[in-house]
């Protein structure tokens, strides 16, 4: 009974929460699914690609632009734009670096699938603990590490006001929630057009469908792989900024949960399928939010990973099917 009452009472509020969270999952999920599309590899270090962008947001909002109270109008747009750009670049380059250091050497020697997975987990943990140790008190091979993040959580100033702007069915919406949805939708439309309508997108789809034939058409597979990591990384970077706007803190292991939930979303939508990742992210966010309404907030993770297990058991190809990039 508690469940039904919870759902009825919180329906519109949780719809709002689910869409907002789901939009962030969707953007991270794109990186998992694109990399899987071209390499049939789950890049478990993708969580850290996201984390790097929250750290850029921390510095941008707190230090570069010295935000102390919520911004509005043109100032807000400008600050967001000049945070999104470096964050997307930093995340994109992190993803490319992971490809170069953790995966390309294995590809060159045609290593078995399992090696890539182990390498991914190694890369993920290395990056997490590197940020954990970068507190100004540690050294790596006698070189002192700079003070970037450290072990403690860091508060990110509010750039967008959390004051309600309007209500839908009695549920207030604030600018943070609207911004997350607006930026996510815009980014996903741009990505979809890029993949479907441009020559670069055709190259990505061709490598995903048949790499050998793509190379016979003049496509450089290595270049497409780098671009795929770069684009997927940039999307996770934008997600990191949105997450920072909405949740106002970062930490060395902040990527872990959103990361594996986005992976769940990618599987739910059909791994390798870009529109699937978008749909899967949104659905997972909603399921999690309604599940919380039905139970209690501490059940959120149980619900999400329950979805992962259920999808893998009953529909392992996901909703839209695997690898339908085209």
């Amino acid at each position, binding site marked *: 009974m508690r469940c039904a009452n919870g759902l009825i009472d919180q329906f519109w509020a949780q719809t709002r929460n689910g869409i907002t969270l789901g939009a962030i999952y969707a953007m991270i999920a794109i990186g998992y699914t694109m990399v899987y599309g071209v390499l049939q590899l789950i890049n478990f270090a993708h969580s850290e690609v996201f984390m790097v962008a929250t750290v850029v947001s921390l510095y941008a909002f707190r230090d570069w632009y010295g935000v102390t109270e919520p911004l509005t109008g043109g100032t807000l747009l400008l600050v967001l734009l000049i945070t999104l750009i470096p964050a997307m670049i930093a995340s994109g380059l992190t993803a490319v670096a992971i490809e170069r250091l953790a995966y390309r050497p294995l590809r060159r020697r045609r290593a078995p699938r399992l090696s890539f997975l182990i390498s991914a987990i190694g890369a993920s943990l290395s990056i997490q603990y590197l940020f954990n140790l970068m507190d100004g008190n540690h050294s790596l091979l006698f070189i002192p590490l700079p003070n970037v993040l450290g072990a403690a959580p860091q508060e990110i100033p509010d750039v967008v006001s959390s004051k309600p702007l309007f209500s839908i069915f009695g549920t207030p919406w604030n600018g943070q929630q609207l911004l997350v949805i607006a930026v996510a939708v815009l980014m996903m439309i741009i990505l979809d057009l890029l993949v479907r309508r441009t020559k670069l997108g055709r190259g990505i*789809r061709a490598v995903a*469908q048949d790499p050998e034939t793509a*190379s*016979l*058409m*003049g496509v450089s*597979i290595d270049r497409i792989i780098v671009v795929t990591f770069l684009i997927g990384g940039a999307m996770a970077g934008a997600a990191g900024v949105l997450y920072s706007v909405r949740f106002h803190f970062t930490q060395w292991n902040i990527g872990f949960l959103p990361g594996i939930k986005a992976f769940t979303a990618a599987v739910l939508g059909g791994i390798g399928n870009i529109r699937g990742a978008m749909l899967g992210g949104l659905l997972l966010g909603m399921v999690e939010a309604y599940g919380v309404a039905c139970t209690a907030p501490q059940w959120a993770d149980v619900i999400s990973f329950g979805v992962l297990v259920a999808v893998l058991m009953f529909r392992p190809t996901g909703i839209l099917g695997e690898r339908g990039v*085209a």
Partner: protein
Amino acid sequence: MTEVVLEVENLHVRYGGIEAVKGISLAVGEGEIVTLIGGNGAGKTTTLKTISGVKRPESGQIRFRGQPIQSKAAHEIVALGVCQVPEGRKIFPRMTVYENLEMGAYGRRDGAGFDEDFERVFALFPVLKERSEQPGGTLSGGEQQMLAIGRGLMSRPRLLMLDEPSLGLAPLLVERIYELLREIHRQGTTILLVEQNAHMALNLADRGYVLESGTIALEDRADALLGNDAVRRAYLGEE
């Protein structure tokens, strides 16, 4: 023979522990149609894949218009003007016919000749124009073969290499595909053709090489090979 376009010299290629190509040498002259015939596992496909850069040779030289290409990547070799139409057609199934053709021109930098080449391919294969918005995977086998050849032509190859274009097609369609190859050749493209259907291939080609377990057993003018007793027995199914 006129000017030599492609030269392969003492090529050795390995697949894991097995030596699939054991010292093949061949040449293709400008404007020629040359065919490699032979049974399954003779090394025909391996030879083509090594020329196009998908496979690395263990040793030997491959020169295209005098330039060594054996250590170049596949996408660089396409840019030089060597295009392979792969065995089994290998259409991108979830791309439209039009997008498949665009993929053929992927490596090209010149935008100008683009429309002209679409026109040329659509003139050769009108069915592709009718089906241009359809996913490649929904075409019939014969249409897919036409698309694969059309896609190859979109790179404006100086040398078009085809791997088993008759594979899995009904005899009437095979005839049709070969007429089109003759037309493509007449328009000025040099062709290197790999076939198990020796009869069709030798009737089209100027010269032929017979491959047996990774080496060249025979080479001659195509009409001479058609009349050769050993070839007739082994590859043309005659007693």
